């Protein structure tokens, strides 16, 4: 296990370095490392290197780091949500968060609200939209025995339709080019808008989510045995599920606000990791963030280099690469989730 972690951490470090160097203007890894070193230590570079340095440090580094954070975050949130709603089809967006975020973002960019927040206005709109949907889903899914798993999924799916309609309505009545591209960005996701400014918030959110979920790994295992069994094993399912809901909603909201709804990673990474290391959450939640981060870094690299200088929507890549890999693996191994 420790070996796998070290190995994956190594692969991630190399991937990050390569991804920062590669792009429409490729910089060799050695150079990349030197620029990064200069940036961190305040070292000097020559005048003709300034452009390359700018690309490396101001554009690509925050972008790749954001991919690392969001890839790790979406993967662990996917693991937690699948356990929380007891459904193999669940992903971070199953509770309608992404359509709430899109609607919020479009509303802000169409009406010019929240201008006080400057360049973060649209992200703030997306985050607020995500939280609004989460709150609505929460209120609608509460029953006598706490949040009910199936009702969570059903309300989430219904909310997703509702907020998609709302978003279309806004685009229909305010038909400027801006909101159409906002819609596309938020529904497919991407790291094109990454800046150093947004990184610390996402870093804190991702770190807290990974650490907190991993701490409750055994409780997640117990929860998967069923609610009645969980109670008999001392896990308060009502409180635990509520905690999971709040944590995953905030984390998903924060990630969507900076990178849009990048599909597929949060659905497939949990399954792929379980195929690899088994179902126990302490292992899954150790491997999933690393595997998710690596996958996301490479997906983003493909998205921005395949038809450079144009950029493909990231969600297209994650799905096009992920679907065949996933289907093949599912067929090859006797993988079971809740049934044959």
């Amino acid at each position: 296990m420790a070996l796998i972690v070290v190995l994956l951490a190594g692969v991630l470090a190399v991937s990050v370095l390569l991804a920062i160097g590669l792009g429409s203007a490729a910089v060799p890894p050695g150079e990349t490392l030197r620029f990064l070193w200069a940036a961190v230590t305040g070292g000097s570079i020559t005048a003709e290197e300034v452009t390359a340095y700018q690309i490396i440090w101001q554009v690509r580094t925050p972008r790749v780091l954001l991919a690392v954070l969001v890839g790790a975050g979406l993967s662990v949130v996917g693991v937690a949500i699948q356990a929380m709603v007891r459904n193999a089809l669940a992903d971070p967006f199953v509770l309608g968060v992404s359509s709430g975020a899109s609607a919020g973002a479009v509303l802000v960019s169409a009406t010019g609200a929240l201008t006080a927040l400057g360049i973060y206005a649209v992200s703030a709109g997306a985050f607020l939209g995500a939280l609004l949907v989460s709150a609505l889903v929460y209120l609608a899914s509460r029953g006598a025995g706490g949040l009910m798993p199936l009702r969570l999924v059903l309300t989430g799916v219904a909310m997703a339709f509702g907020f998609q309609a709302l978003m279309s309505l806004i685009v229909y009545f305010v038909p400027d080019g801006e909101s159409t591209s906002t819609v596309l960005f938020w529904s497919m996701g991407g790291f094109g808008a990454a800046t150093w400014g947004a990184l610390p918030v996402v870093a804190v959110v991702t770190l807290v989510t990974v650490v907190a979920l991993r701490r409750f790994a055994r409780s997640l295992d117990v929860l998967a045995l069923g609610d009645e069994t969980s109670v008999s094993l001392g896990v308060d399912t009502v409180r635990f599920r509520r905690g999971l809901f709040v944590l995953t909603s905030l984390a998903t909201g924060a990630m969507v606000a900076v990178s849009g709804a990048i599909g597929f990673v949060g659905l497939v990474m949990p399954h792929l990791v379980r195929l690899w290391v088994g179902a126990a959450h302490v292992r899954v939640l150790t491997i999933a963030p690393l595997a998710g981060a690596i996958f996301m870094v490479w997906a983003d690299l493909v998205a921005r280099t395949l038809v450079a200088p144009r950029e493909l929507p990231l969600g297209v890549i994650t799905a096009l690469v992920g679907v065949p890999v996933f289907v093949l693996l599912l067929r090859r191994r006797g993988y079971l989730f809740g049934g044959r």
Partner: protein
Amino acid sequence: MTRLLLDDLSVSIDGAAIVNELALAVGDGEVVGLVGPNGSGKTTALRCVYRALRPSDGAVWIDGQELTRMPLRDSARVIAALTQEGRADLDFTVEEVIALGRAPHLRGNQALSVRERELCREAMARMEVLHLAERGVLSLSGGERQRVLVARVLVQEPRLLVLDEPTNHLDLHHQIRLLSMLRGAGLSVLVTLHDLNLAASACDRLAVLSHGALVACGPPAEVLTEELLREAFGVEASVVPHPFTGVPQVLYDLGTATTMKGNPK
């Protein structure tokens, strides 16, 4: 000494009384069988003991402590339950599922100690699932899964075992084995069983529920009468003593099912 006490336990759901002022005690090392027809409130009563349900009225006492005043983890160290819940969501290995029985005794992700791992092995050997240790639980047959779940409640090292239809899915060999193990384990047990003959052999006392109320309680020889079978279960049957053990055994004659008293027509 009284281990478990159901003190006039009542449960009503949406105004309908499912369990009505049930008073029942399980002594130290005593095996008490809860029997009764479908819908008589057996499972509901058990759910109050393993805390999936809060009683509407009355209380459950374990070793002199009122259950709802105890933290969930504390009661889980004392009471282990085999529920009727079906399969797990995730494909844990048999070993992992059994180890989860230690969850109430461990902090966070703390690893099992050597003694605890030995405990798990013993429980697996006892339930004859050692050869399945590495298998995924989702690929097991119903009977194998049931034995794994019993092993899980054993490693919980409870003072009281609550078992809801533990013989479900088990073949004859494993039914007999499980019940004789329960008798020999020295644990206090509250168990629901459908098979009255097994219940009579395995239990020190039988408590008969009908429409949520206790209609008879005592040693099997006193409780299992032809009149009770007619009244509570709606069957005409003969009760004869077992030729070797003397335990009452019920012999059925098909075609004698009577209309149950109080059933909606």
